[in-house]
């Protein structure tokens, strides 16, 4: 085994694959969020595998999951580009759980999230493809006894140019496996790309049109039983009693399982289990949070935001600049708890036997799933087989393993496989929520209204401190401060301070757009307010604070141009603009709204996106469209509130999300770029929230500083 150089983020080794063919093992080196010891294993530990088999088919085993974001199409495109094969010949297999092997280089753990998949795989996957191609060409050259540079690869074959001889990859794979792995391979220049940057149909579409695609909820096993659960409606509550006789009287119920904080009913089908649960009449001890309300949490955060916290940015002397400024302005913004409400409710199917355990679930964190099930069952991790399924939406919810842990606890008491399903009500009332954030900003302004000093204090949960503590260094949570420390604007005197404050009772987690959705809302709202006070055009005001010719300035200008920014709108209509920089991408959006008697109708969203080099343009468009709809749902209606320690919302009637008749026309304009690829899953969502509220202001003169919009306009 060769040792790794810590500078290499990709190491390759070749071996004959089981069943013949060429196998390349890759090491996607950990980099950004990880500590050195995670990343610098002394021996070569591969964490992804590229196999070319004797039929010329290519299999790539990756640690990322498909949850709608198109990764299972983009990654084959990266490999196929360099390997010179048809994309359709590249089959993706999801990696089995192994935290050590399948580390996401941007996270330091096996996870899909944070818009990292393409950012983390861009270089290594192309290098893997190029390395395999180089070895296959060398194998052909050796066979023909010609120099390698007289041969080239095309469409799954190697061709000797002079003689026209040709051998398919399948015929060369065994021989290639015996050759040394080249230490350096040249990657194509962007101008030579044939696949990257060209729209490609998603490889996972066909099964999603006829019901044949299997999600976690679709696991069906011989003898399988069905479980539904009711968890204590009050956070931190305990189950006191349950009417077992009533439950067991329900036809089809096979078992009642009491848990400390929940009751589960098992039946021969979901209906029996649901009927049983409805008859269970659980009595709960409400526990320490029984008087907790959202207002209490908001008050705690408001208090926390005025306490000394961690200084996350300090340039110049903002306090002094504000003290001597021509004028000052202060604003407070509040953003509510949000549920994920993925269309596929939480579920997990588990079969525990004496010698092992099988788990069928769609998860963004397969290795954590394996670990928690091992812990619950007392088995060794290697005895737990996680069969990862396609995800019916992730949005951060499936980065958590609480549902898997609960399913495993239930399964240890059930004979045979059991599918544990959360009703929509459980899914919404026992989510792990996007945290409530409270932000106060102060600016000192010069005579023209331009900010000279900027002080931003805010408080909220540190999700990362719980989720991946290694990523929080010196008390600074890079997620919590995304987009605000510093904001994208040029500010010489800036002070940003945040206080991690965990709310009692309610669990918090990542949510699409992560920290950026909160930070972008605050900064882009505040900047818009400053522009208004300066009586300047919001676009011109922003451009004046951005470096000339910057990518940020360019997307703002592009979005404005395409939206017809200069054209006046009639009364009751308005246009708002916002900028989001993050995940290595630059997004600007212009939202148009019509407001009639407090009802906001979003009519149009124009989105300009510079996400660097684009792998699959249609996927970028889809992610922008999706992010915009997701963000609009949240900004317009989204709010989880607590009363008496319970979540008040329960289903789509009171946790409202956008419907097609409320969905705007969306135009996405992509910037051609040779910069490294940026993330696309989240920034579209982050950008649209302030663009919306800025548009509402333009239409009504009403500034929404506390989301969601619907509440603010209703109370206006």
């Amino acid at each position, binding site marked *: 085994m060769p040792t790794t150089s810590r500078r290499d983020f990709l190491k390759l080794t070749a071996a004959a694959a089981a069943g013949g063919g060429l196998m390349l093992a890759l090491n996607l080196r950990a980099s950004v969020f990880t500590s050195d010891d995670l990343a610098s294993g002394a021996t070569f530990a591969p964490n992804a595998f590229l196999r070319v088999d004797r039929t010329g088919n290519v299999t790539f085993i990756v640690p990322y999951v498909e949850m*709608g974001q198109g990764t299972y199409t983009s990654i084959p495109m990266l490999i196929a580009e360099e390997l010179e094969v048809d994309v359709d010949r590249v089959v993706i297999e999801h990696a089995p759980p192994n935290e050590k092997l399948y580390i996401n280089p941007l996270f330091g753990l096996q996870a899909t999230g944070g818009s990292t998949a393409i950012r983390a795989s861009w270089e290594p996957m192309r290098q893997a493809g190029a390395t395999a191609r180089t070895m296959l060409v060398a194998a052909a050259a050796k066979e023909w006894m010609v120099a390698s540079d007289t041969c080239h690869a095309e469409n799954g074959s190697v061709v000797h140019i002079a003689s026209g001889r040709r051998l398919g990859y399948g015929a060369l794979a065994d021989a290639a496996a015996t050759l040394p792995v080249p230490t350096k391979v040249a990657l194509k220049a962007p101008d030579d790309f044939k696949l990257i940057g060209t729209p490609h149909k998603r490889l996972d579409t066909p099964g999603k049109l006829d019901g*044949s695609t299997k999600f976690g909820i679709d696991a069906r096993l011989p003898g399988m039983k069905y479980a539904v659960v009711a968890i204590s409606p009050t956070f931190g509550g305990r189950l006191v009693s349950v009417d077992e006789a009533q439950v067991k009287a329900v036809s089809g119920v096979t078992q009642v399982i009491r848990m400390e904080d929940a009751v589960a009913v098992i039946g021969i089908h979901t*209906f029996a289990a649901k009927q049983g649960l409805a008859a269970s009449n659980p009595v709960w001890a409400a526990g320490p949070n029984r008087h907790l309300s959202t207002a209490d949490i908001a008050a705690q955060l408001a208090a926390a935001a005025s306490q000394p916290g961690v200084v996350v940015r300090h340039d110049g002397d903002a306090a002094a600049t504000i003290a001597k400024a021509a004028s000052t302005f202060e604003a407070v913004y509040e953003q509510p708890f949000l549920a994920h409400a993925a*269309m596929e409710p939480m579920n997990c199917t588990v079969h525990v036997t004496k010698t092992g355990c099988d788990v069928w679930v769609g998860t963004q964190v397969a290795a954590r799933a394996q670990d928690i099930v091992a812990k619950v069952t007392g088995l060794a991790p290697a005895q737990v087989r996680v069969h990862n399924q396609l995800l*019916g939406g992730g949005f951060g919810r499936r980065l958590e393993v609480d549902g898997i842990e609960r399913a495993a606890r239930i399964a240890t008491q059930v004979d045979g496989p059991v599918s544990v399903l959360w009703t*929509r009500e459980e899914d919404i009332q026992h989510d792990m929520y996007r945290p409530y954030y409270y932000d106060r900003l102060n600016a000192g302004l010069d005579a023209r209204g331009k900010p000279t000093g900027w002080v931003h204090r805010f408080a909220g949960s540190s999700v990362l401190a719980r989720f991946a503590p290694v990523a929080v260094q010196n008390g600074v949570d890079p997620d919590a401060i995304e987009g605000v420390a510093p904001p994208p604007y040029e500010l010489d005197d800036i002070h940003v301070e945040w206080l991690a404050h965990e709310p009692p009772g309610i669990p918090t987690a990542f949510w699409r757009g992560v920290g950026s959705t909160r930070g972008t809302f605050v900064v882009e709202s505040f900047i818009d307010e400053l522009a208004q006070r300066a009586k300047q055009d919001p676009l011109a005001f922003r451009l004046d604070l951005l470096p000339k010719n910057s990518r940020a300035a360019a997307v703002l200008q592009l979005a404005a141009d395409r939206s017809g920014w200069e054209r006046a709108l009639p009364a009751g209509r308005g246009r708002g603009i916002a900028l989001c920089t993050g995940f290595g991408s630059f997004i600007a959006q212009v939202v148009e709204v019509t407001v009639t008697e407090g009802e906001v109708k979003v009519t149009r969203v124009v989105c300009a996106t510079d996400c660097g080099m684009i792998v699959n343009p249609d996927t970028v468009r889809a992610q922008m469209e*999706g992010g915009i709809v997701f963000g609009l749902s949240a900004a317009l209606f989204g709010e989880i509130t607590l009363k008496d320690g319970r979540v008040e919302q329960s289903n789509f009637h009171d946790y409202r999300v956008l*419907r097609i*008749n409320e*969905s705007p026309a969306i135009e996405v304009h992509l910037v051609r770029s040779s910069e490294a690829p940026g993330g696309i899953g989240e920034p579209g969502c982050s950008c649209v929230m302030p663009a919306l509220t800025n548009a509402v202001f333009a239409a009504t003169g009403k500034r929404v500083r506390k989301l969601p919009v619907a509440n603010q306009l209703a109370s206006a």
Partner: protein
Amino acid sequence: MTALLVNDTTHRVEVSPEMPLLWVLRDVLGMTGTKFGCGMALCGACTIHLDGQPVRSCVMPVAAAVGKKITTIEAIGATPAGRKIQQAWAALDVPQCGYCQSGQIMSASALLAATPNPSDADIDGAMSGNLCRCGTYPRIRAAIKRAAQEA
């Protein structure tokens, strides 16, 4: 025993008459293409056709389906409208996660069968009961119009 005609095949199931058709399809017949989303006819993920009409199977007692023709996502491609809708969905790469798409396609197929050239208002009316969290609405609208043009 209850006899159900699902996708032109008769199935005999022993279930209580009030059991929602959704669970009969998914848990008794093992036809998992029809999805559970909300249980209250709020999201449309469970949409099937009963004699060609779109209904939410999560609130439809199985007794109400007896003697009627049940069509699910697994067989919608055999109908002219369903086939066109699936083709348009593929051409525009509508699905993202795909979970809601069974219901979307069932609602859209019923719309197209009844209204071969639907207006935006027709699309809003027929499709506003089908939620999508991935935000595929712009493509759904475009795909329905494309399918109508193929007619």
